């Protein structure tokens, strides 16, 4: 694996050298740190110390057009031309990159989804190694790690005055080529420092869940009254799903003005009763209990059944953001005690 050193002073120049790409970086906006599309890296202030939000929308936008139509002329399908600008997403965390890996098979299998697949293929993911865990991180319990490079093309590790840059994939090499003037070779001490930071970070993750036999447990206690207890606090706001790196459920809606319009795909949430409501009025998941149970089932049973891997990356964002203090770590503890 190729490794480089980037002085922190050169970070904005490094990003500015990526001007042939659409660039997404973490910046502070409306009180949270989000991955935002920027034009001029030299004019912005990066936030590399907070847990970034909405990383998934760089590849799976909150709203995107599936096609446009004219009721008289018919449908105009989009083309997925390869000359479209590739994008670079900088400063995401290991859990975010793993999140994409976990939802990839959903969009790839059986009926490949060209919208997701095209964006995924033309996106380069540059990760930033977590030094300290955020408030509710538990990635090490669910197969992840703050140092994981799964899904990343490059990984940056803060080693003091500079970043240690590891090249993970061929796509990562592409970035190295255009930023070479700002990079140098690491010395032995820098390599040792990087390894120390990584090891430290893994040990600092304190919140844990016990996933041993969890999917069997969820199946066994599917009809238990515990789910109602767990859902007592939930207000069905859906914030856990919108900010979850692996929640991908969507709605499809048409927008039409004077005979012309588009079919849009937008994020949806399994926390909403309308999500499953039939036109007849029948609803298989009418209350918060069924919906909260379904979300935990999907992450810790369905995803394992379908793809062999837990659907939770342990980022803890659903806990941090929940307005009613639902805590998936505590909820799993409660389930495992039964």
């Amino acid at each position, binding site marked *: 694996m190729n490794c480089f050193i980037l002085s922190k002073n050169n970070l904005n120049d490094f990003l500015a050298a990526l001007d042939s790409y659409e660039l997404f970086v973490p910046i502070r906006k409306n009180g949270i740190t989000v991955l935002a599309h920027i034009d001029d890296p030299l004019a912005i202030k990066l936030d590399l110390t907070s847990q970034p939000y909405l990383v998934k929308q760089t590849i799976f936008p909150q709203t995107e057009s*599936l*096609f446009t*139509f004219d*009721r008289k002329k*018919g*449908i105009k*399908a*989009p083309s*997925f031309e390869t000359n479209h600008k590739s994008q670079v997403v900088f400063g995401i965390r290991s859990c975010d990159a793993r999140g994409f890996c976990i939802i990839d098979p*959903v*969009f790839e*299998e*059986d*009926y*490949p*989804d*060209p*919208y997701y*697949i095209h964006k995924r293929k033309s996106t380069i993911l540059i990760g930033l190694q977590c030094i300290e865990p955020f408030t509710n991180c538990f990635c090490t319990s669910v197969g992840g790690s703050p140092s994981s490079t799964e899904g990343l093309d490059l990984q940056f590790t803060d080693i003091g005055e500079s970043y240690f840059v590891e090249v993970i994939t061929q796509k990562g090499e592409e970035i190295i080529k255009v930023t070479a003037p700002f990079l140098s070779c690491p010395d032995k001490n820098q390599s040792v420092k990087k390894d120390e930071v990584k090891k430290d970070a893994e040990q600092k993750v304190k919140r844990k869940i016990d996933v041993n036999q969890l999917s069997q447990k969820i*199946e066994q206690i*599917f009809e238990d009254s515990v789910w109602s207890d767990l859902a007592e606090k939930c207000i069905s706001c859906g914030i856990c799903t919108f900010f979850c790196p692996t929640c*991908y*459920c*969507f*709605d*499809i*809606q*048409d927008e*039409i003005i004077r*005979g012309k*319009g588009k*079919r849009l*795909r937008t994020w*949806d949430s*399994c926390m909403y009763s309308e*999500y*499953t*409501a*039939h*036109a*007849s009025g*029948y609803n*298989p*998941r009418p209350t918060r209990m*069924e919906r909260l*149970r*379904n979300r935990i*089932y*999907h992450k810790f*049973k*369905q995803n394992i*059944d*379908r793809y062999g891997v837990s659907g939770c990356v342990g980022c803890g964002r659903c806990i941090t953001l929940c307005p009613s203090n639902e805590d998936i770590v505590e909820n799993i503890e409660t389930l495992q005690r039964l």
Partner: protein
Amino acid sequence: MMENPYIPHQAVIDRIKQETTGDRAIKTLDVKLQNNASDKSFQFHPGQCAMLGILGVGESMISIASAPSQNDILTFSIMKLGRVTSEIHACEEGDLLTIRGPYGNYFPLSDWKNKNIVTVGGGIGQAPLRSVIRYVLDKRNDYGDVDIIYGARSVSDLCYRDEFEKLEKGNKVYVHLSIDEEEEGWKQFVGFVPDNLLRIKPSPNNTIVITCGPPIMITLVIKKLIGLGFQDTQIYTTLEKRMKCGIGKCGRCNVGSLYVCKDGPVFSYQQLKTLPET
């Protein structure tokens, strides 16, 4: 270049038949795919569904009610309930719909050769069963007796009434209709579908039963069938869920770890009973 599964074909409404009237009216539509899309892209099996839609309104997953032998015409029976189905009901012959599919698995009819087939349907749930019945009649010598048990709330809610009369003529097809409450002039069974099933008592011997209707009806029918001595592997149903994509991605139609759109809609009771309820 990969195909785009979200782009529908256009189809023209060839014929509309008003099956029932009222708040929850049902119309049967024959639609014809445009631009020769039918030849290769729309090969289907009984039990499969298609996404029907109107540009600017949206799409609904509807089961195909015709038999595959019916060449370039696809038949759908649609109850007027939500936004999309109401707009489809407002369409006239010659209007355009959009169509994607066919989706989902299907009844393993080739495994059922030489068996007797019993269908137990309620209301609009008869639509996918119509496809099975028509398929079996197309290959009449491959299958045994056909019993059609079908009920609706009232006489005016029964679909395909004219068709049932024709079906019964010397084809070893027996039709057993029911309505929920007494009506003047009705000579057949009065009561719920599961009770009509108990009255008819089909023999489990060399027989497959397929049931489709409201969830509560399906549950009761299966219970009665088990009581009549049917094995779990002899009972099939087809499920309905709210769907948006139809291709196992939008997330909402799961039963346990399976998606009704893609892994279903057809399930044997043997499979169904291993799945959690919602």
